[in-house]
């Protein structure tokens, strides 16, 4: 890694939820002490078993929640968002309208998403269905629309939870390739998974989190072998 300023850094961050109804009840610390840095242009993998606090971490990175202790430092001006499919889609509206809505929810301006509608239509391969209500779609078609919209959103820091591609085998390959191209093109990405193999393939560095605590941070090879050791104990 070149020695530059991190665009995002976490310092001993903790986040808690309440065990009971709403915001009452005793706190449950989903993240206890997480620290790492994210540099511009890198692909950072975050690995950990189920319940390690990965979803909470993504929410924190996306700016959806604030840490209850510790510190998150951001260099200004970066748009960070989660790759979310079918965000805010409304069943009775057609593909075009849902693409508009989804794009705006993902942070695009109205004219920006409007300018990309034809690209979305083409990439999703929906053709005439693009103008029909999405409740007439098959689940594969819906996934294609969802991915094509999310792919256009293009934030400065992209957060990905688990999967790169979606849809049937053919579209899955196409969408995975598109994502990989974007990642290779120098996009700053945080990729969260419990699958060591994919992380090894696409990530420059890896952070391993267990029970809300950072266990290790370093090259994929080092961190993953340490992770797998505990896994097979």
């Amino acid at each position, binding site marked *: 890694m070149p020695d530059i300023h991190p665009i995002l850094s976490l310092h001993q961050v903790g986040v808690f939820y309440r065990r009971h*109804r*709403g915001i009452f009840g005793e706190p449950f610390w989903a993240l206890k002490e997480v620290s790492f840095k994210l540099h511009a242009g890198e692909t950072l993998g975050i690995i950990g078993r189920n319940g390690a606090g990965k979803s909470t971490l993504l929410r924190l990175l996306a700016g959806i929640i604030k840490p209850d202790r510790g510190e998150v430092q951001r260099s200004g001006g970066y748009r960070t968002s989660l790759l979310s499919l079918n965000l805010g889609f409304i069943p009775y509206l057609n593909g075009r309208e849902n693409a508009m809505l989804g794009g705006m929810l993902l942070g695009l301006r109205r004219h920006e998403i409007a300018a990309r509608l034809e690209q979305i239509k083409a990439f999703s391969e929906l053709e005439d269905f693009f103008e029909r209500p999405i409740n007439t779609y098959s689940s594969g078609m819906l996934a294609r629309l969802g991915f094509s919209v999310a792919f256009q959103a293009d934030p400065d820091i992209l957060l990905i939870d688990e999967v790169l591609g979606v849809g049937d085998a053919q579209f899955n390959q196409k969408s995975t390739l598109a994502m990989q191209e974007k990642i290779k093109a120098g996009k700053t990405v945080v990729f969260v998974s419990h699958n060591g193999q994919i992380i090894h393939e696409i990530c420059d560095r890896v952070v391993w989190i267990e029970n809300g605590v950072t266990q290790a941070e370093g090259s994929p090879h080092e961190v993953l072998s340490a992770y797998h050791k505990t896994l097979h104990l």
Partner: protein
Amino acid sequence: MLKQYFDLILYKTYADLRAETERTYLGFLWWVFEPILFMGVFYLVFGVLFNNGIERFTQFLLIGLVTWQWFKSSLAHGEQTILANRPLIQQIYLPKIVFPIILVLTDSVKFVFIFVLLLVFLWSTGSLPGTAYLALPLVLFVELLFILACTLLLAAIVPFIPDLRFVTENFLTAVFFMSGLFFKAAETVPPHLQFYFYLNPMANLIEDYRHILMYNQLPNWTALLVIALVSLAGIVFSAWLIRRFEFLYPKITA
């Protein structure tokens, strides 16, 4: 940044309205039919079966019902908006205040249709527009402010105390019967209780609408000003409250 959310609010309002029209066979006609059915019931009971001796009672009643429904439906729907959008706000950051605002907007658009229908009814049954109509936009605007204040406040609190919904439902029913929809306060309410009766903003607003639409009289400016100021304060306070809890709402567990 604000511009972006403004666009989103408008588009989402449009999308919600369109989704509503697509959901049924008759589509947007229901925006008109539903209130007509609703008002028909009240007309039958209080206009036909009850003899209350108020002149042009149908007009008197419908003005109250139409403007009350705008308030009531915004509140009843709006209080749940932040809670209902939990899946969304756990995926992306959005200022939570957009959700109740979108709801008030969609309900206001539907209200416009019904209100125009009401005006047509009033004109065709003898209450023609007079100079007092000039004050009508102002009364509508003040009611919108009042609706926003109440809806934002409830939307801010209900996510933390969902039980509140049952309270507001019954509270709304109580206020409904105390807003003078079926009676003239000046003649019915005992003099020593009149002061308390008029503490209810809806009672004042409904009377203002009747003054303008039926009697060509100007509204009570003082009361209107007080309601506007209190509502503005309520809007500012509620917006502050929602802003304060901005990052807490996504953490609420179901």
